[in-house]
């Protein structure tokens, strides 16, 4: 385990040194590919001077807000559609159509509706997170075995109890898998949403850096975005492990 960790760090160092060496040896313009050392110092300066922090906060907040909003609405709609079959049959074709529409293509109309800034980006992010939650919630709730449903009927459980005590708990692992997909998509949605709608945030900063032909800053921003993504993903994973701690008892993980 530790050996693999060491080897993967070694691989990263080799790549970085190779990159640095190739850029210096070939005298490649920093505009095309900046050397890692420049990217590192741009990153350091941006963090030290405080220039990057507001953007980090805004993108982080947009991602989280959109994620929470999308997950909540997706979960609630999934429960309603799983429980109400006629409604599911009526609205499913439209939900499918909505899912196929590239959400980012809706950005211009959201700008007209909500103005520039955080609001349209949050809405786009929420829309992107909505579908994995909707689908996984519906799947999770419908996968409950016939015998367990019959057991609850025999025990005289009403519909609400069957939902709360049986269907949601037994669908929770599938639902949480949807949450894990959603958190990754949320960051992508927020950053790309900022390309189009934002004046602030990491996505908007990338566009601004592009305008100034500052490739070094773009790379530095990419590193920050990746770090935020990894951080959010790990936090989701920890939350999932905590939430499902009773489900994994005795199972070989």
């Amino acid at each position, binding site marked *: 385990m530790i050996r693999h960790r060491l080897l993967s760090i070694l691989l990263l160092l080799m790549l970085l040194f190779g990159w640095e060496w190739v850029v210096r040896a070939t005298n490649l313009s920093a505009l095309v590919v900046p050397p890692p050392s420049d990217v590192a110092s741009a990153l350091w300066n941006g963090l030290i001077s405080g220039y990057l922090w507001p953007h980090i906060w805004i993108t982080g907040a947009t991602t989280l807000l959109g994620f929470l909003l999308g997950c909540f609405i997706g979960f609630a709609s999934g429960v309603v559609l799983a429980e109400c079959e006629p409604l599911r049959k009526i609205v499913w074709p439209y939900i499918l159509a909505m899912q196929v529409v590239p959400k980012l293509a809706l950005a211009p109309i959201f700008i007209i509706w909500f103005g520039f800034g955080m609001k349209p980006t949050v809405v786009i992010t929420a829309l992107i997170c909505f579908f994995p939650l909707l689908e996984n919630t519906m799947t999770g709730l419908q996968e409950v075995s016939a015998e367990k449903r019959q*057991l*609850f009927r*025999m025990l005289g459980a009403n519909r609400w109890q069957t939902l709360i005590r049986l269907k949601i708990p037994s669908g929770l692992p599938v639902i949480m898998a949807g949450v894990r997909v959603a958190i990754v998509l949320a960051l992508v949605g927020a950053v790309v949403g900022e390309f189009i709608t934002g004046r602030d945030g990491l996505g908007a900063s990338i566009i601004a850096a592009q305008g100034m032909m500052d490739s070094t800053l773009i790379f530095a921003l990419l590193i920050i975005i990746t770090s935020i993504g990894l951080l959010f993903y790990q936090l989701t994973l920890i939350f999932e492990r905590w939430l499902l701690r009773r489900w994994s008892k005795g199972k070989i993980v």
Partner: protein
Amino acid sequence: MSINRDFFTIDQVGYSFSGGDKILSGIDWHIPSGSFHCLVGRSGCGKTTLLKLAAGLLLPSEGQIHIEAAPVAGPSQKIGFVFQNPALLDWLSVMDNVLLPISLHRKVNETDRQSAHELLHLVGIADLADRFPAQLSGGQQSRTALARALITSPPALLMDEPFAALDAITREELQDDLLDLVASRDTTVLFVTHDIAEAVYLGDRVAMMDKGRISLNIEIDIQRPRSAACRYGKQFSDICQTIRSAMSRQVVK
């Protein structure tokens, strides 16, 4: 409760799927309180359907079923149902699984926990109360399911091949424990199985079902309490032979 009173009264019961396929027809069966009746038959002969009708999970298309003289109109709280699959909830401990029939309807109190503990002791898994289903063997899961069915002290048990997935030795142990439990509580049992020897060992009467009809219903005149020795007696094997040959005859024709 008088022994001669019928607990289940099944009169001229038939059942068809909504498509019109007839599953059961002309079933007449009276099961006196406190008696242990078994139903054998091949897969797909309709025995599980009859069990579900008796439970109130399905309603008959023809005829009527009464439980203690009251017509069955839905799942009855007087019945504990044991499924083929133990149908335990993975996220609850053994103790909480056993207490589920109570916790669905009211807050669990100390007396309930006490009686759950006694029941777990009777089915031989008192030391596993805090384990989770995934940590149990198949036999231990079946024991948990049995304890769950008995926690509300129902006057009757309906069992759908509950030991079918277990190895022969474990199955025999569970059969003996089941006989002790229901004898001490004077529980009425309808036990469905495809194993003739199991039916003969457990039952006061054994009925055989073929193509949706009861084709044989005989009294098992082996003295109680029964023990492992009687499984190998002449009387036992003669009865098994009678049932077995009745079953073959119908299939050849």
